[in-house]
């Protein structure tokens, strides 16, 4: 089990390790740091594991983004987590792109 790591690079948050309910402080502060430009791209390329409490945390982050009128996007999801985004319909609220570059181009 690895804690979540979140590296902020402009509007991009590069996630690593495990995204679970315990990741709230890490993700919240990374989101705040990245949201200045009005767009935050969550890069899941380095993600090892995400569970349903992690999905809950994404919903919380999405609520925050909507309140502060920040566009939240996702990139670099594995096929498995891409499918979970689809099952939970998270992909209807968080635009999903294959890569960070594509996401930034769409922003």
């Amino acid at each position, binding site marked *: *089990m690895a804690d979540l790591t979140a590296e902020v690079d402009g509007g991009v948050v590069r996630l690593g390790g*495990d995204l*679970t*309910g*315990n990741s709230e402080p890490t993700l919240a502060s990374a989101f705040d740091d990245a949201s200045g430009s009005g767009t935050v791209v969550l890069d899941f390329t380095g993600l090892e*594991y995400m*569970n*349903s*409490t992690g*999905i*809950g*945390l994404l*919903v*919380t982050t*999405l*609520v925050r983004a*909507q309140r502060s009128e920040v566009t939240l996007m996702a990139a670099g999801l594995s*096929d*498995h987590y891409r*499918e*979970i985004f689809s*099952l*939970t*319909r*998270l992909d*209807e*609220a968080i635009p999903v792109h294959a890569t960070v570059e594509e996401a930034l181009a769409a922003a």
Partner: protein
Amino acid sequence: MAASSTVIPIPPTDPFSAFLVSRAEPVDLPDLELESEVLDRLRAEGIVLVVPLVSEGRLLGTVNLGPRKSEQDYTNDDRSLLSTLASQLAPAVRLASLAKQQEDEAAERERIEQELRVARIIQQTLLPKNLPEVSGWEVSAHYQPAREVGGDFYDVLETGDGRLVIIEGDVTDKGVPAALVMATCRAALRSAVELTSDPGEILSRTNNALVDDIPPTMFVTCFVGVVEPSSGRIRFANAGHPVPAVAGPGGASELRASGMPLGLIKDSPYEVVEAELVPDSVMVVASDGVAEAHGHDGSMYGFDRVLETVTAGRDGDPIDALLEDIDGFAAFQEDDITVVSLRRLASAAQSAEAFGSPLLEFEVPSQEGAERAAMEKVVAAAGELGLDEPRAAKLGTAVAEAVMNAAEHGNGFDSGIPVGIVLHERGDSVVVEVSDDGGGLDGDLVAPDLEAKLDGAQSPRGWGRFLIEKLVDETTDRRENGRHILEMRMRKVGP
């Protein structure tokens, strides 16, 4: 002539009645020598002449006359006139009384028909419209009311922990009273099933509810079988209902358990017996309208023939086989015929043979993060069993979610209570069971809805069970030895 309005009944046992029939003409009372109470009463009323109304040898009534106003005796002409009158009056009276009788009978027939219609409606409203569908099993039922609707009923229920409850009953009596008792009994059974999955307790609760509610002359026979679909284990109890027949690859058997019919004696005990419905076997519960059907020669169909017919019809539809055989046997249908069948499919047989010993069996402590280790072991084992990578990943995530729910909701994060994980290969599938000490799902699960979560109407969490259901091919909840078990099945190859 003096007219009197007093009605004096003439009982057929009074000698005067027979006398009047034999004479069939006006009779003078003063000279008559006969020991008769009726005669004494007539004389006391001042009657002197009685004209009998006789038709087809039956006394329909009399015309009773007092003395003539002229105080002279009745003449022969008078008598002849009265005689003619009586002979014409008698058939008319007879006709009128027959017409009245027929009218009464028609009204009674209409009343009975109406009652039958009501009974049929009550009964048909209360029989299940749809039967549960359980993978690997087939449930069928047939109900055929007799003209005079009996009190047969059946019900097939699914409990919260995935068991199947098969119920068949028969209320003594017919028509509306039987239909009403059936409705009471069905409601009592259903509420008992909500409280317990022990067939003996289901029957004793229902019995105690009925003893107070139904007339002392009525009772209900009833079979209750509680089936665990994953193992084929059936626990059953029987309140005097016909014994169910089981036909399987190893031959025929009977599911016998003793118990008094429902509604007679409070706190009656009900024996609970356990059996196994092996793959490719079928259980048939047939009401007494089947075994007690009478043939043209007056013989009874009998339970042995039920068993024989079910055994012979095992490969096809045993209900059809039974109905066809009875149709050829019985002179007419005297009683309701109700047959419920439960078949364990043969395909489940092969999977059960392959069930074997678990390929993976371990425990993790009930604490956060424990699910990751469980997931990795399951994904590795599933990969070795031939699940492709995406399906193994899905099963892994489902198991992780199940372990999280078990640790949190089942065991309350008590690190002293482990979460159990067992992995089997079953036929074309990998099956993982995750067990905890909790009570399983309570009530209906609210499906998570992203909009509701974004609006704050639902908590952002609550995705676990939803994901499990979406990720694997089949889930089953059950209880075993006080543990709640969630079974997840994933086919090796996707559709």
